[in-house]
């Protein structure tokens, strides 16, 4: 779904005070009934991540960590079965999964008397039963399953969505009988930058030559598009020429301004595809 910047801004304004909960998502849907649900979710998710990034650092100073940890310890002692960590996260407006990580990290420091390894930490977040403290394990678990933007489960879902859209793209290309190399083949050939798809025979989409296609299962907002341009899209252009980016969950229409420069944005698999036609087609 292609949104104008004004529409996008209105949605963003509405997400400003929402929490990553089901109820909040429902509110958003009701507020914008004509927009696709996945677009709204994706915009919210991006905005929430921005918000967390802005505030995250203030939860990472040693004294704040210590204060969170002490609060957790005392609350958990008082109400061992209550979801105290989740409540704490909501109270200080921090993502529950990130709160879980901070507290677990702090817990492990005491346990081993040193800096815990990241691998151990990650594994415990994914599998709370590995945590030696039963109450903490419960709290961590509550946090990770109640966060719809962060945490191992969400990562897993996001990854699956990304993969699904790549599969979808490949299927569409096969349907159109377009021959291509995918990321894995390119990597095997030693390419230093690899879009999801390189077309072996280029096509024209809406009159623009397309050599490569990148699939993005997210909404294209200013921030993410700028980052993608710098880290990926221009790099692809620098190596393979003009190409196409599909933001499956839509994008801000005004960002599609580099068509003549060789980067075309779409929110779906294009329909207007012109291929090289030879022989019989010409006469």
């Amino acid at each position, binding site marked *: 779904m292609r949104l104008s910047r004004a529409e996008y801004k209105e949605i963003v304004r509405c997400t400003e005070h929402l929490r990553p909960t089901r109820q909040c998502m429902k509110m958003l849907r009701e507020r914008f009934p004509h927009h696709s649900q996945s677009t709204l979710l994706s915009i919210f998710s991006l905005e929430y991540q921005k918000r967390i990034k802005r505030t995250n650092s203030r939860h990472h100073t040693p004294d704040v960590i210590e204060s969170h940890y002490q609060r957790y310890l005392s609350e958990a002692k008082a109400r061992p*079965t209550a979801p105290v960590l989740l409540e704490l996260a909501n109270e200080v407006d921090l993502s529950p999964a990130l709160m879980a990580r901070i507290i677990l990290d702090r817990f492990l420091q005491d346990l081993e008397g040193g800096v815990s390894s*990241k*691998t151990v930490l*990650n594994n415990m977040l*994914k599998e709370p039963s590995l945590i030696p403290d039963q109450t903490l394990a*419960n709290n961590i*678990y*509550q946090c990770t*399953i*109640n966060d719809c933007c962060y945490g*191992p*489960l969400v*990562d*897993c*879902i*996001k*990854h*699956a*969505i*990304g*993969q*699904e859209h*790549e*599969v979808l793209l490949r*299927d569409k290309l096969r349907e159109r009988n377009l021959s291509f190399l995918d*990321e*894995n083949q390119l*990597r*095997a*050939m*030693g*390419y*230093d*930058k690899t879009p999801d798809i*390189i077309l072996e*025979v*280029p*096509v*024209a989409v809406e*009159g623009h*030559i397309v*050599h490569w296609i990148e699939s993005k299962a997210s909404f294209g907002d200013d921030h993410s598009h700028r980052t993608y341009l710098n880290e990926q899209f*221009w*790099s692809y*252009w*620098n*190596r*393979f*020429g*003009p190409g196409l980016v599909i933001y499956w969950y839509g994008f801000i229409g005004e960002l599609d301004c580099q068509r*003549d*420069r*060789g980067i075309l944005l779409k929110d779906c698999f294009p329909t207007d595809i*012109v*291929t*090289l*036609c030879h*022989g019989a087609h*010409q*006469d």
Partner: protein
Amino acid sequence: MAALLESLLLKKVDVNKALDWLRNPCLSLQQKGDTLSLSEPKVTVQKQEFVPFLLNFLREQSSQALTNGPATPAKTPSRPRPPTQSQGFFTERRGCRSAGGGAGSRRGRGGHHNEETGRWEGGGRRSGRGGGGYNKMSEQVSPPTVSQLNFNNLEDFPPVGSSPISPATAKPSRRINPTPVSAERPHSKPKTCFTSTPFSKPSSPPVGAEALGGSLITGSPLKNLVPNIFLELFFVMQLLTSWSPPTSEKEESLLIAHLDKCTLRLLAENERVALFSPALRERLTQAQDTSTAKLSPSVSTFIHSVPFQPATDNRSNFSSDKAFHTFKKQRDIFYEALREWEDFHKEPGWNFEAVLGNRIRAMVSQLNSAGNHSHFARLFLKQLVQMCKGPRVNSSPGDTPDADLLGMLGADSLGRLKRLEERLIQPHGIVGPCPPPSFPGHQEFFRDFLQIASCCQLNQHLKDSLCQQLLQLDEVSILSPAAAIGEGEKQRFASVLLLARLLAKFLGFIAFMPYQTSERPSREIQEAAVALRSKSAPVLDVCAVLSSCVRRRRTVLTVPWLVEFLSMLDFTGPLLLCYRTALGTLGMLLGRCGEMCNLNKVLMVAVLGWLFQIPVIPEDMFFISDFTEVAHLEDGSTSSQGLDSIPLVDQQLLYTCCPFLGEFRKLLAAFVSGSTAKSGGIIRKITPTSAEIRDTPTANRSQQKLQVDLEQAFFHNQPPSLRRTVEFVAERVGSNCVKHMKATLVSELVERGEKMLRDGLELPKSSPPKLNDSICAQLCDAGMEALARCHVTSVCLCISLQVLTTSENITKRLATEKACSWLSANITALIKREWKSRFDRVMRALASPVSPVLGDVEGVGDELATQEQPVTPKRKQECQKVTTCPADCRHTAPLPSDILIEIKVILKLGFYYLS
């Protein structure tokens, strides 16, 4: 000399005799030595001195009348120029270096226009500003006084257009009220004479000057005697458009007949030409019909990057992982800089150094630490060629016509629009026939990049590569054996020539960069520099290249690129023996391109003339060279089958290489717009494009263009060998097809013609010539028709399907065999090498504390967060197994993400349920 000139003017010496003397070295050598003896008074004049003397005289005499276009520089024969003369001229090239940036240099021609004029003011005459040239003249013998000449009568000779206004300052003019500029002409009556003076027969200038001047316009006689014939031609046209045309009726081979159609038309329609010499006008009109120049810019609509080719660019081409990844970043930074330059460099206040300087230097310093110079040099040069090789030199996004527009209009209409635009926006953008060397369009980026990077290692790699490519191009065979010269050869030649010129200019730029100074050094400093520099080898052995091309009669290819190389010389460079010799030889060549065919000759004359007019090249180089010396170079000629005698240059190429030739058209057009608006106007209407009916509908045309673009794009990411192979096969099959058609269609038609002839002859009152004509016409029509009917299938007919399949199969078999035989011999070595690198990597990974290999074992979860991060091939392949469906899959299974979301919900509910 003055005496000789006076004798000429007073008709004491026959003009034709003087011309003969000037033009025929052998004659005069045999008869009187290199001097001309005059009966009365007894004087002896050196020929080389006379020509510049005459030219200066003409300029001096006409200085007050000339108001149109920039001044043409005067000649300074046989004497070194005073050092001050060239100051401030080369800001395009030098000024920016001293400024460390070059940001200001971008304003195109307009930017240095003033400098240019300034230089010319110093060097010669300039209208309305007093006797700049006179001082010079007085150093020599004073010419006769002006009193007898009637050139000053400006009322009879209305001025043209406006005086040289720098395009930078000139506002787009609507041509509603063409205002003659009076400030520049203190002697003229302002304004009124411009629009109201009817054309009147001019009083005749002295016949001697007229004849000599006029022979300039006809070209060949004097061509060998002056360094830049086009400069003189421009000067004559200035005269022509200001006052009486000093045209002579002598018309030998018309040099100007090779100019573009538009110029010829303007010249032919010039009332004064007609008045002076109807015969010349006739010839000009005829020449229009043969003129083939299409000046519409050929537009390349999309600029590509340099494709990543695994064969040269993947990891195995780098010494280390670090070098590989560093280069990855460098490529991106390079393009980032290029894009930024494209977007902003035309904005006021934008400064290359300030904006990009540090980024580029940081990148270059990484080159040094990673040892990636050769890779970057290749990228740099390929991108340079990609962007700057084409004839369209000024294609920055602002200039490039909109691709959609192009698709809608097609190139023809676009050319028309361009002309219209030209006429509307820059009616007075006349810079003269000798613009200084410049870096138009994207070339400027590459030049500034090199200056800012200022990296000697990179420059060395670039020089190596440029030299190698240039010498390869110079040797390249243009002609396909035993084939007539067709468009293919011409195109190939043009492409090689343009590429070589571009590379040569950059080679020269890099090679002489360390020696550039903003001002000409003093004599002493130059001598010391010569002594020092003569000890080290020059970057390119120009003399060897030059003598080789003369010997093999390939000067039409080599000289134009050598000229580009030499145009980049610093002030001291021309004094070095190697370049002095080369310049001398070029001077001689300029005097001796008689055996070349016409447009080849014009190209040579134009580029060489331009070179000898560049400030760094001392003019005496030309005037002291002895034209008789070149003969011995050609004596040893080994092959008669060179390029010089083959018509390879066409007008498109000529104007691409020498855009300054377009100045004639501008000058004449300015004259027309100024002088004839009153008399009804000769201005041709430029038919509005929209009013035109095309045989192909717009959609169809843009589709065609898209197909062409797609074809180009296809080759872009393929290895270059594929394109070469395709071109080769196409060439062979096409040629076979022609043979086939000759054997079938043509012979069939000829048979039919014979029958028609025999039948016809039997009729009473038959006339064989008439029959011949009519049958021939019928056959040709039939042939065209047949061709139109079967043009696609005919190619297929030539190769039967079986032949096609068989050759395809043989190709496959041969390829397989080759691969197999190589593999069977080398497979062990290959495996060993690949295994070693993998083994090393694994061992290294195991040695480091946090190992990605171990990470693998820990399961899927770890990569979830890293969707966009590089993943090792092994891991990705595992994913691949998962994501590829079996062949008969109908994709009816629910999406994994949906299942995961459901699981999450259930987990959540379950947790509350349990607790």
